[in-house]
């Protein structure tokens, strides 16, 4: 039968603590390497005599305009490069409000795979002729911004407005 001495016991505790610290530090390092966080908020755009204001909301009426704001923050110790921020136009009757994207230089996609700078155009054949037409903004399903490099501790915010279909709202 082996009995542990106080020294042995101390060593064990030390090893355990070290392992714990190592694990914690490893976890910290991992988080730093994967250090861009994204924080999304929705606001209702309320118009009044004093102009528009944004009110945090979890509800919407048909015809309401919702502004989505996403803040990307580099919480890591190293720079994040070639940051591409993607904001979907959610299903359920939402449509992108033209020219509401900020920053204004934005790309859009109908399928989440192929992006092109707005306004989107497409070529169709109508009555035997090739016609280049502007894709209605209501068909946009994704918005994408090129944020470039995000230095440690820095953040960037993108926003866009979406309108809930209210064709029949009176």
């Amino acid at each position, binding site marked *: 039968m082996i009995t542990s001495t106080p020294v042995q016991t101390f060593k064990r505790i030390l090893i355990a603590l070290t392992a714990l610290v190592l694990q914690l530090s490893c976890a910290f390092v991992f988080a730093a*390497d*994967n*250090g*861009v*966080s*994204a*924080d*999304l*908020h*929705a606001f209702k755009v309320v118009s009044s005599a004093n102009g528009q204001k944004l009110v945090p*909301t*979890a*509800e*919407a*009426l*048909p*015809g309401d305009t919702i502004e*989505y704001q*996403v803040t*990307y923050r580099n919480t890591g110790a*190293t*720079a*994040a*490069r*070639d*940051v*591409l*921020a*993607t*904001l*979907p136009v*959610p*299903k*359920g*009757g*939402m*449509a992108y409000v033209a020219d509401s994207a900020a920053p204004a230089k934005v790309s859009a*996609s*109908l*399928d989440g795979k192929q992006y*092109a700078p707005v306004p989107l*155009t*497409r*070529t*169709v*054949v109508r009555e035997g002729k090739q016609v*280049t037409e502007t*894709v209605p903004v*209501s*068909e946009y*399903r994704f918005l994408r911004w090129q*944020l470039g490099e*995000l230095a440690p501790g820095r953040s960037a915010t993108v926003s866009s407005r979406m309108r*809930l*279909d*209210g*064709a*029949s*709202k*009176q």
Partner: protein
Amino acid sequence: MKLNPVPHALVLALGLAAIGTDAYAAATPAGTSIINQATATYIDSTLAARSATSNTVTTIVQQVASVTLSAGTAKNGSVNGTVTYAHTITNNGNGADSFALAATNNGAFTMASVAFYADANGDGIADNNTAITTTGTLQPGQSVQVVAVATLPASAANGAANNLVVTAASVFHSATTATATDVTTVAPASVMDITVNSAGSGAPGAGAGAETAAVQTKTTTAGNVTRFTLYLNNAGTSTDTFNLSSSTDANFGTTTLPDGWTVTFKDASGATITSASVAGGANTLVYADVTPPAGATPGTTDLYFRAQSPTTNVVDRVHTAVTVNAAVGAELKVTKTQALDANCDGIADTAFSADNITTGAVPGACIRYEITATNQGGNAVGAVVINDLTPANTTYHLYSLATGAFTTQGIVIAPLPNTSGLVQATVGTLQPNGNAKMSFGVRINP
């Protein structure tokens, strides 16, 4: 749709078009959760591709009320009558809702009553006698058809108009309403106007009352029928039944026709009728078959037709005439008249008459005769000869050439003075209504 890539353009797969149609769908149903989540991709310091995903944000779609009501219409109505207006109510909101039905009056008069009824089959007629005050629950996009039935008051004046403002108000959100206005103009229940040959306001006989002159004259011969085509025009709002009658009196003081005359009214199918039903705003064709008796005196007879409702007393008359021409072979009418010429100077002492001479016709006195032949037929008659004989106990009398036997047409022959025999005028042709008169004198034997 053929798609071609162009610079700065997006190439679409055909199926992707469906994605965009979401935005065109009807209003998003209440209770729908709209969930959004942002992402990012980037390159970290080890050149590894990384991604970041945001929290999700959920937005719950709230109910909004919206309703449409089909446009109002305009109708004519009569006092104490009803008018029915069909309306379609559609829930254009994004949640189930029901709609309260109401009506308010403005304009020259107020409806005696207004009620709404279901009209599920949309035929514009109430489905039953159960009045309703709401539409019942309608799902988003669902419609229901109802009718508003309004009763006109007894006091409403002809030409007055009522505006019935029909309102459908959301029960979910009472401030959300839709309105439509139905206009009712009071018009007489029935209005009669008889016309001849064609219907409507420009037809012969259009307008109230009997015309001063016949609007149509039919020609027939004694014993033969002639047909008038009459139209009974009812410019009112309701069906009415009109009794039919005829008279030679414009005021219909009597409806007894001259001896032997008959008038038979018939409908379009030829069936004999004594009355005719005419719907509001419509007309009904009626034939009037007029038959003068076989022995009818040729000539023109004024004849009036009347249509009168026994319930509303609405009435109109029309003035026509029938000309009876003598039958073929009986066109010529011959009449003989006489007058005393007491002093035998060849000049009648009195007016000519068919009556007996009762005084003065003594031996030695003279009598003057006039024989008139008239063509009462519709066609000319030829080779007309008027013959007469000096009566017994008289001789042909010639006072002077100017007063001798004479004819207004053709040539005349006579016996020698103071002899008896034939007096004859060879007239020749007589046109319709034309006549010729032969005249001569005799002396009663002394």
